[in-house]
């Protein structure tokens, strides 16, 4: 074993890391399978993959090849291009036909895809990826390292305007991807970043690998990608159809299905009815609101996995009344978090504690390390008084999306006894996210914003809580999503040290320190982390239960 592998062994043996945490960190840092096996064996565990299994009944029987799998998802409502896509419909449409270097399993353990191995340098500010050999593009041409370099050069180019820029900001700049040889590519990072493989996985959904001569806007013509299915037809508000890729690198046995169809729907209820009626097999990303009928349907299996999907209840720390930390804390203490979890999501969420280290991330602080905040109206009133206020009048600006309007109602009701008089302003999503210099989600004095799941704490924190992510007054710095406009240099320093640290014990200490600051300062209330739901008909097997906006249908089959 090398030093890091031995370090992991020590952490696991001492019980400071769980098996799942070990797997996540080991695969993130490129620990080889033999070494991982040895570590787990020494700790008394097995190294079998924690892929999370598939939907359908537990007694699946032998794999049945062939047939067509049908997915129901919300429409991308626009043409799909992997470089600029940013909604679930587009992402899933792409993921059936295209590949990433690595791909997470339901427990966020990174699995090899177009990369077979990855290793950090002595400091994790350089990462070397070994590229899978013998892979063909769907048109039969060979996949090479040049394609990988071109793909990342493309999405790190500010002129292209990819959403990936927000993930790579401060980590990977344009032109820093080096072809070492025909099998190896090296990423030269702007700073040490121990979770870099997450940024080349589907958690950075634009980091799809495309041909080096790919022309933007041509993906939906079909036949582009190295993935298990070839896109044949696409209609932005109707659906897409795919056939099995006979040249797929996964071997002659994969994928199991002969074809896949995606049906696009405008809203959740028709998808619920469609899966109940059997006209679709999978509803990959199920929002709790509006899908309750699925939980009691005997023909449908709904899997539930913890995730890092959450909502911010953000307060502009640079504006009254939120300049005062006591006022922000008062609001945080006014909320009944278990009540929110039950009322909004039927209990299908984990409690949040006003810091961005989601429970699913390895090494996230526990409630023993950062005490869980609970509702305390008396304390809330006391905090307001200490700020020199007896009541606060504010407008809560948010979006019409999933459970968020109800969340806003709950906040209004729960905060009233503490002295908060809240007026609600619920806007359509397009208006809430806005354009140019008018983007309410970044400008509102008090708001709620939805955040999709990310793979590691850094991906959640960097675009939303660092000083560098505070939006400029004219909002010209794309990818700066710090909607609370909060800047704490000590927090920044701790996070950057955390991201560059390989020692798991030190990472934990840094995480606790950073989380404590964020919990104390509470620029955003983070009241819950949503458990992701995926619904499959009982005859569907082999489809991973999550992460739910990542679609991997290679091993899916239907009984």
């Amino acid at each position, binding site marked *: 074993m090398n030093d890091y592998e031995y370090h992991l062994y020590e952490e696991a043996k001492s019980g400071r890391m769980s098996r799942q945490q070990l797997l996540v960190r080991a695969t993130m840092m490129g620990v080889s399978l033999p070494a991982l096996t040895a570590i787990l064996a020494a700790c008394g565990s097995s190294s079998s993959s924690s892929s999370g299994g598939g939907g359908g009944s537990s007694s699946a029987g032998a794999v049945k090849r062939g047939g067509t799998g049908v997915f129901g998802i919300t429409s991308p409502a626009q043409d799909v291009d992997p470089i600029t896509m940013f909604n679930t419909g587009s992402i899933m449409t792409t993921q059936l036909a295209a590949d990433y270097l690595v791909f997470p399993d339901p427990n966020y353990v990174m699995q090899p895809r177009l990369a077979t191995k990855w290793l950090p340098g002595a400091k994790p500010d350089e990462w070397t990826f070994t590229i899978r050999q013998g892979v063909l593009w769907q048109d039969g041409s060979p996949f090479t390292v040049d394609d990988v370099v071109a793909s990342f050069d493309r999405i790190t180019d500010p002129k292209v305007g990819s*959403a990936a820029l927000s993930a790579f900001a401060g980590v990977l700049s344009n032109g820093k991807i080096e072809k070492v040889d025909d099998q190896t590519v090296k990423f030269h990072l702007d700073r040490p970043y121990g979770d870099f493989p997450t940024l080349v996985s589907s958690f950075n959904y634009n980091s799809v690998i495309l041909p080096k001569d790919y022309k933007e806007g041509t993906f939906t013509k079909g036949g582009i990608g190295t993935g298990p299915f070839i896109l044949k037809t696409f209609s932005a508000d109707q659906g897409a159809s795919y056939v099995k890729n006979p040249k797929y690198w996964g071997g002659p046995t994969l994928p199991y299905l002969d074809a896949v169809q995606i049906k696009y*729907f405008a809203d959740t209820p028709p998808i619920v009815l469609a899966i109940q009626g059997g006209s679709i097999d999978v509803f990959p990303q199920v929002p709790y609101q509006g899908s309750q009928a699925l939980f009691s349907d005997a023909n449908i299996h709904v899997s539930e996995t913890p995730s890092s999907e959450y909502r911010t209840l953000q307060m502009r720390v640079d504006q009254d009344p939120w300049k005062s930390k006591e006022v922000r804390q008062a609001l945080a203490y006014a909320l009944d978090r278990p009540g929110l979890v039950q009322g909004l999501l039927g209990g299908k969420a984990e409690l949040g504690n006003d810091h961005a280290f989601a429970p699913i991330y390895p090494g996230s602080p526990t409630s023993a390390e950062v005490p869980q905040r609970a509702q305390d109206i008396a304390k809330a009133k006391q905090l307001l008084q200490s700020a020199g206020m007896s009541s606060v009048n504010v407008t809560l600006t948010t979006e019409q999306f999933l459970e968020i309007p109800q969340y806003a109602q709950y906040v209004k009701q729960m905060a009233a006894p503490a002295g908060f008089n809240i007026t609600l302003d619920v806007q359509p999503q397009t208006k809430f*996210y806005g354009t140019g210099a008018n983007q309410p989600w970044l400008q509102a004095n008090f708001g709620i914003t939805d955040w999709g799941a990310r793979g590691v704490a850094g991906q959640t924190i960097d675009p939303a809580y660092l000083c560098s992510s505070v939006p400029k007054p004219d909002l010209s710095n794309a990818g700066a999503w710090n909607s609370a406009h909060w800047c704490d240099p000590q927090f920044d320093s701790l996070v950057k040290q955390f991201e560059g640290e390989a020692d798991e014990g030190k990472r934990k200490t840094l995480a606790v320190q950073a989380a404590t600051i964020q919990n104390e300062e509470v620029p955003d209330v983070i009241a819950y982390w949503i458990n992701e739901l995926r619904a499959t008909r009982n005859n569907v097997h082999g489809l991973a239960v999550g992460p739910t906006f990542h679609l991997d249908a290679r091993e899916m089959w239907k009984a």
Partner: protein
Amino acid sequence: MGRYILKRLGLSLITLVIVSFTVFAAAEVLPGDVARTVLGPYASQQQVDQLNHKLGTDQPLVKRYLTWAGDFIKGDWGTSPILNVPVRPLVLDRLKNSLILAGFALLLIVPISVLLGVLAALNYGGAADRIITITGLSFVALPEFVVGTFVIVIFAVHLGWFPVSSSVPDANPVDIFQQLLLPSIPLMFVLCGYISRMARVGTVESLRSNYTRTAVLKGLPRRQVVGRHVLRNSLLPTITVVSVQVGYLVGGLVVVETLFSYPGIGQLILNAAVSHDLPVLEPAVLMIAIIYLVANFIADVLVAVLNPRVRLAT
């Protein structure tokens, strides 16, 4: 009659021009920014400005309207910057789908509504009249979404007699019936009560008129009195009401199209409005306006044919 038709045509054209400018102007002030919607929230403002310039959305409103109207007449409707497909075939295809659903729905709704209305009138004040009236009013009060969900759950999910989602049927009558019956049911609930009430009112009025009394006193059989004298006059307001509903059936079925995933023009218009896809939104809405005008024109002509007093008065 010729003069009447020409006059109606002229008024329709003037209306069309006014509607086209209203649609164009209203669409230009919808919230959102085309280039921003296409490029996503992370593109720089410079890129957004460049695309807006390329799409011509930074030109003066009147100049853009004249260009757009000219292109519309020539059949050059451009390409959707959101969907990345030519607009004309997309809009016409969706319009065709909506016309198919509307046609099927009308084939069910009009005869049933008229029959119920006439029955109610013929049994004025009686049990049949009360049942038909109250039932019709109750059904009108039920939202399309509720009825649609109900029929899907019963007939598609539990009984499996019909598909959960409706696609555009082929020419096979069985397929037409299977694909279009369920989405037509919520429409029947909404419209039958309303149209049957109009038919009832018209029929009651006709039954009480002098010419009906004369026909009865002349000894004509009741069937002949109703069929030849009463219906011809009583259906005039019904024809007008039905023509107004045609526009709703073609372009207003967003809820039904969403629930049944039917690829109609209503949903296309909604998506285009939300995503600020002006090249799709404007011609699609204009086509609905044209359908409205055509339906009203046909209704006006029919009324004039059935009632000579109308065309002579103009």
